[in-house]
């Protein structure tokens, strides 16, 4: 399964993109202080709004900040938000879904109602109002809100899975042996949930990063932590569009799109592995087969015609 997953082209591309971003998130900060000798709040007054050059690889902002340094610091921020929201969201999903599905009865009913409520509340609306009232939302805050409002879809799937697992033979066997309920859940059921949890994890990463960028762009997020959304926000507020400083607002958006692309690609890979009808490899083989059939038929036809002519 894992081998098949890793052999898919789009999975490889997705993993490489995501890996590069994680790597940049880790080494970005030491790289900019040790190699570039620049911080996000260092101003180069001799280079205001300059296009990319050898000294500033991605150019400078209208106040002389280095765009590359901001991009590196922003990567760390985005990866933290993405992972943070995914962890919080998955924790809620698994907790609510498993508890409801395994215990059943009243607990399940209450949890189901709560799930339904959370499913219908748009997380972005909550995010901007909370961030607005707090005046400053750092990555922990954003992760908590995203994670806390984006779990319901997964929780329903986990619940359904848990309900079916509860009745399987191996669960019954363990129960008759006298294993405690939580041991069964933790060691036997949890691993079975990967099919539901992994696509959700990826989606939550993208959601966390995207929404943090969105509130930062609106100017409600943290005004001090460098992030991609904040770069775009500053660029628009300081007339980068009018002055044509494209190197300021193009890279952060491109990074956002690439991270989103990588999670989408991985998710498509997961889909193909779990549902072979969607496999592109299979489809290509099928098409090749059909084409060869058509060719055989065509050649038969022409040869038959040839015989007739003869």
């Amino acid at each position, binding site marked *: 399964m894992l081998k098949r997953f890793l052999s898919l082209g*789009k999975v490889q591309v997705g993993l490489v993109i995501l890996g590069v971003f994680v790597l940049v998130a880790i080494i970005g900060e030491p790289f900019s202080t040790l190699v570039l000798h620049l911080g996000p709040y260092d101003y180069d007054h001799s280079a205001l709004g300059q296009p990319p050059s050898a000294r500033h690889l991605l150019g400078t902002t209208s106040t002389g900040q280095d765009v590359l340094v901001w991009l590196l610091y922003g990567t760390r921020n985005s990866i933290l938000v993405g992972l943070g929201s995914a962890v919080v969201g998955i924790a809620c999903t698994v907790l609510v879904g498993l508890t409801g599905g395994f215990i059943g009865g009243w607990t399940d009913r209450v949890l189901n*109602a709560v799930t*339904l*409520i959370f*499913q*219908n*509340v*748009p997380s*972005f*609306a909550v995010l*901007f*109002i909370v961030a607005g*009232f*707090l005046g400053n939302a750092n990555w922990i805050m954003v992760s908590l809100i995203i994670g806390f409002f984006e779990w319901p*879809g997964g929780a*329903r*799937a986990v619940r*359904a*899975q848990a309900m*079916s697992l509860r009745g399987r033979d191996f669960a019954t066997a363990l129960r008759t042996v006298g294993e405690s309920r939580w041991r069964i859940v933790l060691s036997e059921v949890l691993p079975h949930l990967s*099919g*539901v949890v992994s*696509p959700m994890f990826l*989606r939550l990463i993208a959601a966390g990063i995207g929404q943090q*960028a*969105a509130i930062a*762009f*609106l*100017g*409600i997020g943290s005004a001090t932590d460098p992030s991609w959304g904040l770069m*775009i926000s500053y660029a*628009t507020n300081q007339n980068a*569009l009018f002055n*044509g400083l*494209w190197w300021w*607002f*193009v890279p*952060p*958006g491109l990074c*956002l*799109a*690439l991270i*989103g*692309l990588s*999670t*989408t690609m991985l*998710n*498509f890979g*997961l*889909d193909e592995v*779990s*549902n072979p*009808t*969607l496999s*592109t490899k*299979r*489809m*290509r083989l*099928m*098409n090749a087969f059909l084409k060869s059939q058509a060719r055989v038929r065509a050649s038969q036809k022409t040869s038959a015609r040839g015989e007739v002519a003869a």
Partner: protein
Amino acid sequence: MSAPNTAVLYAGAPEPGAARASVPRGRRTRRNGGNLAYLGKRLATYAVIAFVSLFASFILPRLVPGNPAEQMIQQIIAQTHAQPSPYVRQQIYDRYGDPHQNLFVAFFNYLVQTLHGDFGRSIQYYPLPVSSIISQALPWTLYLALVSTIIGWLIGTYLGARLGWKPGRRLDSILTPFSMFFSSIPAFWLGLLLVWYVSYKNGWMPNEGAYNEALGKPDIFNPIFLLSVVWYSVLPMVTLVIVGFSNWMFTMRNMMITTVNEDYVQLARAKGLRPAAVRNHYAARNALLPNFTGLAQSIGGSLTAVILAESVFIYPGIGTLLSQAQGTRDYPVMQAVMLMIIAFTLVFNFLADSVYVLLDPRTKEL
């Protein structure tokens, strides 16, 4: 189809509507049966959600550090150089916290005010009431949201039906990766690129606003005014459609792939019907179901993208209002916008539920 399988099937297309539509309904619905009982239950849920969100929006300003009510009064004084009237003062205390007031009384007052459509007064445009500001901005946002969602839906569904009919062909292998990328682009960034390239660099299109202000006052019976509205909304629409269409395409494509192998489609082919007829009337028709329910649901959800795109194009809708409001810490406006988004999401979700009941007779049997 069992629930876990369908959940995985839709995992690639992060469309809440599609995933939800496929989850079997609960046991209790089955016992009670009937469409009305089902819709009534949904309605009750939405009423609870509305109440909870109202309560949350009421309690939130009381929980944050500092004293928002006092801050707002100071802001008003600083702006108008006059004390606000006792009525306005009381209203602000009711809505944003008064340490001397009973919480239940305050919540009751808040509830009565809000349900009467009274969201307090804007700080930024004091003394204009928030409700009148919102009602001016709302039509623009709804116009963008509805039209862009429908265009994106049509394009996405059509392409998805084409791709899913013969998956793995050249069109599929070109279009699918491309739209994966498109669906990952943040709407506001794409908007920025378009404004920068089309409006600032080349001056082909207007860079901000919703209509040509040289025409004078907005008059919806004036065809020239309407043309300028369409012209000014081209860029925001293009942005939203590009970002939005691919999810529809993916759900439709994956649904088509499963439907194409169904027996009744095979039968239609065996009967010798035209391929296009089989595709449109047999396969696509049934594969359409998740996309159809998703449509109503997504209009509520698409408000987020619309709001962000609006603030790029300085389109006079909710989004621009919101980004101005946060700059001046205009809490009443922000709060009203939040309640508005939640209300619209609920309305459209309920619409989706109703459509689903009408379209899919299986809900009745469940």
